[in-house]
């Protein structure tokens, strides 16, 4: 309850609906509010009467943004509604944010007015928030099936602590049915499409190849990318994670970061200004932001401007200074303009004519500390792109402090 447990000092409480939301039929709003009151009257001695003029105990209205009290609404999402504890004047009143989409259904595309009203009227009667998951007075909106909706025992205990049980012997049972499991939660984000995984032809589960040792001199990589200041090295299903924040190399798997992505990337690169990393496999690519896979992927690599003859790419690297991304395929490479989101004219060009001394095909590419690193087998080539000069050749795993 609220501090000092304010309650209505009478059993007959009046309410008035001051205005309506354009999202719903007025009759549906009337019904949702009436059902919400009935939920509380069925477990208490309280009786609610609707009035159509003058001052009622509980005044119900829809409003957006600033609406005359100290607690302005915040646009779509966030705060959906609020209500005041029992008392004179604004006491007991319930306000609903008109910037929300109100509905009589339980869907992802709007908020169920009955559910929210039942919660807010709990406040109008003197209940504060419950931290019992599944209780009506839990602060967070939980879309549940509202057909034969029953109060959680926690709600009943709370309201009866304020007003006692109903008087009529044939009132609804005070024992609540088990709280309804939410029929549908609001997904934090659209479910990412599960990618078809190649089913192994024979039933025997294939044992994933062992992770090569960090300092194996023959270690090669499928793809390498930066990600928010860290560097990720990919091979098969394995990830080596090098972070400026920790001295140790962390050993992970692709599925531990992005469960629905496939193993064995061909290429990967980060566009740091967009906090976005793109992964390539065969003729498709995905985009992620941190752990989140952007919806609408995978997409065909032809969307980026590759001719249909290109069925996969070997490596990719983004040059933060020029906003260009270089894609390497066989003995050629393309330059992609991230600002215009299109391939540059005059490409593909031969790798040998612009990157002397680099052996192709290139397995992976990385930009770090102003230099480019091109990986071919167990070697990598450090290149100063401005001067198009090969600086030195190293083992591919020189990043692992071997």
């Amino acid at each position, binding site marked *: 309850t*609220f*501090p000092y447990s304010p309650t209505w000092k009478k059993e007959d409480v009046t309410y008035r609906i001051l205005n309506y939301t354009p999202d719903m039929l007025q009759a549906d709003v009337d019904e949702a509010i009436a059902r919400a009151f009935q939920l509380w009257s069925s477990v208490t001695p309280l009786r609610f009467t609707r009035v159509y003029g003058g001052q009622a105990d509980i005044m119900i209205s829809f409003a957006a943004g600033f609406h005359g*009290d*100290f*607690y302005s*609404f915040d646009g779509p*999402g*966030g*705060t*959906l*509604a*609020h*209500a*005041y*504890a029992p008392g004179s004047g604004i006491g007991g009143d319930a306000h609903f*944010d008109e910037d*929300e989409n109100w509905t009589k259904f339980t869907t992802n595309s709007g*908020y169920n007015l009955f559910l*929210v009203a039942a*919660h*807010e009227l709990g*406040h109008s009667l003197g209940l*504060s*928030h419950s*931290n019992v*998951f599944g209780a009506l007075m839990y*602060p*967070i*909106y939980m879309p549940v099936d509202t057909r034969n909706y029953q109060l959680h025992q926690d709600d009943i205990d709370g309201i009866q602590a304020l007003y006692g049980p109903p008087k009529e012997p044939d009132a609804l049972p005070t024992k609540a049915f088990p709280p309804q499991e939410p029929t549908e939660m*609001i997904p*934090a984000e659209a479910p990412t499409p599960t990618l078809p995984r190649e089913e192994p032809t024979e039933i025997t589960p294939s044992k994933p190849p062992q992770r090569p040792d960090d300092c194996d001199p023959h270690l090669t990589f499928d793809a390498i990318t930066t*990600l*928010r*200041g*860290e560097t990720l090295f990919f091979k098969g299903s394995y990830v080596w994670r090098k*972070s400026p*924040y920790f001295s140790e190399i962390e050993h992970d798997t692709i599925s531990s*970061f992005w469960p629905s992505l496939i193993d064995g990337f061909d290429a990967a690169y980060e566009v740091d200004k967009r*906090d976005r990393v793109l992964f390539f496999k065969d003729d498709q690519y995905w985009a992620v*932001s*941190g*752990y989140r896979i952007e919806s609408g992927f995978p997409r065909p690599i032809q969307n980026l401007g590759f001719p249909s003859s290109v069925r996969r790419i070997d490596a990719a690297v983004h040059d933060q200074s020029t906003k260009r991304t270089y894609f390497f395929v066989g003995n050629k490479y393309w330059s992609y303009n991230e600002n215009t989101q299109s391939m540059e004219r005059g490409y593909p060009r031969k790798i040998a004519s612009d990157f002397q001394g680099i052996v192709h095909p290139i397995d992976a590419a990385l930009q770090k500390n102003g230099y480019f690193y091109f990986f071919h087998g167990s070697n990598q080539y450090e290149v100063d792109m401005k001067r198009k000069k090969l600086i030195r050749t190293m083992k591919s795993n020189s990043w692992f402090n071997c």
Partner: protein
Amino acid sequence: FPVAPEKEQKDMQLAKKYLENFYDFKEEKHSLFKAKDLSRMADKIREMQSFFGLEMTGELNQKTLDMMKQPRCGIPDVRSYS
């Protein structure tokens, strides 16, 4: 993963607003003692994590942020409107 810098800023703003709205957090606008401010904010984060049964780290981790982003009632969790 590390949090993207500008995202971190936005998340911090969201969290401050949330804690002010629902957990009686008051940021000293011109406080000279940033460290004190941060520790008071950490206390409020712990209070919110305790209410929702989250691990009480006092840090603005992803689970805590996700909870703060859920659509909800405007009434505070620790006191009524005055």
